[in-house]
């Protein structure tokens, strides 16, 4: 029997002329339903229909019908549907209310005024179901991203919902954190719950899925998705040029804590150096040293003069201009580069949205917009910090193409990434950064 039923549903965000969902009809049955499709296609909007955030929280116009477990979504407020539908969002940091794990998991139960004597058992049950019983009593701030997202899942499960909806829950996580969350999702489905998940990392989920929905341009279809390969379409590597940057005997850290201890590293023009290693190992510190944003405690940092393009983690935070075109123009003007902004926008498939406010774009489009804002023209040194975090397949492919072109034009490139596919596709050398040291990976020697 269907858990959710959507019939001829169309939805317009406030002030939008085009619908975000158009004439969608869908049945969601028990088990795991995977929702895929390009960024900006309407996945998040569709998921928000299931717990009434669309239209009750976001406003706008809606037509058609939607029903979850007998509740008319259009007439039932989200706070009531919260007892039937649990929801896990993308960013683990932006859905935490309390700073203690058990309190956080109990937040929903407190909201529905469950008697306190029943709460402890519910919290314990939810922590077990999400596989994080060992985290009870911990401070949320001390947890990794993957652990925090499992706390969010436990918080949803504590309400004993018939349906759990997850909107790209691993997009902000490293591979270890993502595995942790996806394992938990598989477990709750095996325990007999129903789940709907929008996700880019399909390979781990598809074997367990009972249905799939592709959302594109606001319309849905139920074809089985294909997982694209990152290496497709990569240009051949050029030989690297003269030394572009080097660190000799460099130590660096913060507040008296040494993060990198007496390290040596270097990179050439026309070369891609990838930094791998665990969270907190020092990858971002190394990038900031190379960029000159952080002064070393000792040792020497040298780089050839020229323009530096630096993509920080969460690069969408940089976007602030009225249009995407003006955002790119700003960087080009400052760099004194004659290239028109349309060149990089076309390369990243963003010409259609060049006149739009960048923060109104979908998550994946924003990621590409941030790349366009930072990387236009011909930067001499390109530093990328976890560039594929939160990216959909199209954005990752666009990134690979862009970085390959910059490398072939002679830019020295350093990218810190957990993404092993990206390293395989792009890296000439891999430096493993861990516990304060930097070691060149033997298995990934210079290919030039």
């Amino acid at each position, binding site marked *: 029997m269907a858990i959710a039923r959507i019939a001829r549903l169309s939805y317009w965000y406030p002030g939008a002329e085009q619908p975000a969902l158009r004439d969608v009809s869908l049945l969601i049955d028990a088990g795991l339903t995977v929702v895929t499709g390009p960024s900006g296609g309407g996945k998040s909007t569709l998921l928000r229909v299931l717990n009434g955030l669309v239209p009750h929280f976001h406003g706008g116009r809606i037509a058609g019908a939607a029903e979850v477990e007998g509740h008319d979504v259009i007439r039932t407020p989200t706070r009531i549907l919260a007892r039937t539908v649990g929801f896990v969002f993308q960013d683990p940091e*932006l859905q935490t209310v309390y700073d203690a794990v058990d309190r956080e998991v109990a937040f929903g139960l407190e909201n529905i005024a469950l008697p306190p004597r029943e709460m402890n058992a519910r919290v314990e049950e939810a922590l077990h179901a999400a596989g994080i019983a060992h985290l009870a009593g911990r*401070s949320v701030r001390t947890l990794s991203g993957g652990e925090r997202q499992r706390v969010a899942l436990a*918080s949803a499960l504590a309400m004993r919902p018939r349906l759990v909806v997850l909107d790209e829950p691993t997009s902000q996580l490293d591979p270890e954190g993502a595995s942790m969350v996806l394992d938990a999702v598989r477990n709750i489905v095996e325990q007999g719950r129903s789940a709907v998940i929008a996700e880019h990392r399909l390979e781990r989920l598809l074997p367990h899925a009972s249905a799939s929905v592709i959302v594109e341009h606001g319309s849905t279809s139920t074809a089985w998705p294909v997982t694209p390969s990152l290496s497709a379409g990569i240009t051949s590597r050029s030989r690297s040029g003269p030394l572009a940057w080097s660190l000799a005997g460099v130590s660096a850290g913060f507040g008296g804590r040494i993060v990198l201890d007496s390290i040596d590293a270097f990179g050439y023009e026309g070369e891609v150096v990838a930094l791998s290693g665990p969270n907190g190992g020092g990858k971002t510190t190394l990038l900031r040293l190379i960029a000159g944003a952080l002064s070393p405690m000792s040792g020497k940092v040298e780089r050839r003069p020229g323009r530096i393009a630096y993509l920080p983690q969460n690069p969408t935070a940089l976007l602030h201009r009225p249009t995407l075109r003006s955002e790119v123009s700003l960087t080009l003007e400052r760099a004194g580069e004659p290239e028109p902004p349309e060149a990089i926008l076309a390369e990243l498939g963003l010409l259609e949205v060049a006149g739009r406010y960048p923060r109104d774009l979908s998550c994946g489009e924003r990621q590409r917009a941030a790349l366009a804002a930072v990387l236009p023209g011909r930067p001499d040194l390109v530093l990328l910090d976890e560039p594929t975090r939160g990216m959909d397949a199209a954005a990752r492919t666009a990134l690979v193409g862009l970085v390959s072109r910059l490398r072939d034009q002679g830019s020295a490139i350093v990218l810190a990434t957990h993404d092993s596919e990206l390293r395989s596709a792009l890296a000439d050398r891999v430096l493993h950064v861990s516990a304060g040291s930097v070691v060149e990976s033997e298995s990934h020697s210079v290919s030039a």
Partner: protein
Amino acid sequence: MAAWSAACLFIVLFTTNPAYKAMVLAAAIASLAAGAGLHRMRGLLLGVVLIAAFATLLNFISAHLGATVLFELPESIPAIGGPYTLEALAAGLSGGLTVAAAIVAAAPFSLMLASHDVMDALPAVLSRTGAAIAASLNLVPSVSASFVQVSEAQRLRGWRPRGPRSWAEVIVPVVLTSVEGSIQLAESMEARGFGSGPRTALKSSPLRKSDWLLVAASAAAVIAIVIARATGMSADWYPYPSLAAPSVDAVSLAACLFLLAPVVAWRSRA
């Protein structure tokens, strides 16, 4: 804790006597050191010293009153010209003590309590407001991290701080990101049933013996200082026109000593 903080604030604002203000400050520092530990207070104490010094200096520079002139600047110098007096310095010190004591008295809320502790202490009628406050407090660290990250990245993108308007390129993205974060958090709270109606709490925090001791000591301190003032035992102190040493009476002194109760109560808790 709230009763003790309120008593400290009441006394430091109620009395004009800098000796009592200094005693309240000393009691607040001793209490906080017992509860939070000196190592966690270093940043706070440095900030308090700077703010108190600024308040003192401001009065010394701007109030050209009093009989004991230390030195003079020509009257023709705008704003700072005129006599600099011992009385103005003493009045400034008294003001600085007030500010310092008020800050240290309020500090236990941030140094010793988690957001859920504050929530648990609120009456049920304020529980929804408290949850909203607790949630917003959780966003504070991400705002400061966002500021560092955006300013660094914009600098590498060619931005340079040239006057107040140029800061828009850092401030605007940070504010927009914070607002988006707040909306996301509100959406998440709504999705978890926030606003459904009356709430319950996983844990409540009944007052313990040591809490009642603190409430009693705080009440005693306030009552004692009011009685001392009402009966004329505690005289007002005013530095102008000529400076006199503040007098100290036994009842007001006892009031200040009551404020040391957390040294016992919080040490046992820690």
